[in-house]
């Protein structure tokens, strides 16, 4: 399935990418992350959470929605 991957804050800077479409044939968030770590090795040692369709999910979650966001620690306010 085609996924719309969004990167925020520090992660958008290190990947030099704010959003991209990725073809994903695996099932879980952790498999998706393996794919992204191959593309952007620098992500592997960064601290972030994953949101699927704007909800934070664990890495065991099945990828079922098209919008996936990588969210580093928040720093609003």
């Amino acid at each position, binding site marked *: 399935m085609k996924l719309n991957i*969004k990167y*925020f*804050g*520090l992660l*958008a*800077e290190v990947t030099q990418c704010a959003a991209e479409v990725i073809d994903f044939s695996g099932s879980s968030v952790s498999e998706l992350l393996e794919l992204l770590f191959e593309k952007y090795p620098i992500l592997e040692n960064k601290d972030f959470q994953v*949101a699927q369709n*704007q909800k934070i999910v664990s890495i065991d979650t099945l990828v079922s929605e098209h919008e996936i*966001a990588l*969210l*580093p*620690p*928040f*720093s*609003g*306010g």
Partner: protein
Amino acid sequence: MKDRKPKNVFKEGAISSEFIGQSIAKHQSKTSIGAHNIFLGQVRADVIDGKTVSAIEYTAYEEMANAKFHEIRESAFEKFNLTCMHIYHSLGTVKIGEICLFVFVSSPSRKDVFKALEFIVEAIKADVPVYGKEIFEDASHQWKVNS
């Protein structure tokens, strides 16, 4: 409680003292209110490794952030006896000394607004996907981390 729709909390640039003053004035007609409480987040000129912060550039996962702000609003209305609540957060560049977050709660009585304001501000810091990039005077930067 479910009739409130998610609002857009974000404003481009700093939140002006005129805007804050007008927000207060608008509540004069709501005469069941006996207490307001206001939190203003201001951009601080932190010195890090000898370099001074001159501004913060804010970005956000806007759709998710507005949904989170809405959840925070709903749970604050459930927990506390509030008449109304307003939250505004800056996007883009906010210079040191300027306001980047404005939270305004109103209630018939003071005890609710004291507790509600702390609850709301802490929830914003913890749960809302907003990112601050601290820009130093020499134009270098680092990503802010909330303590």
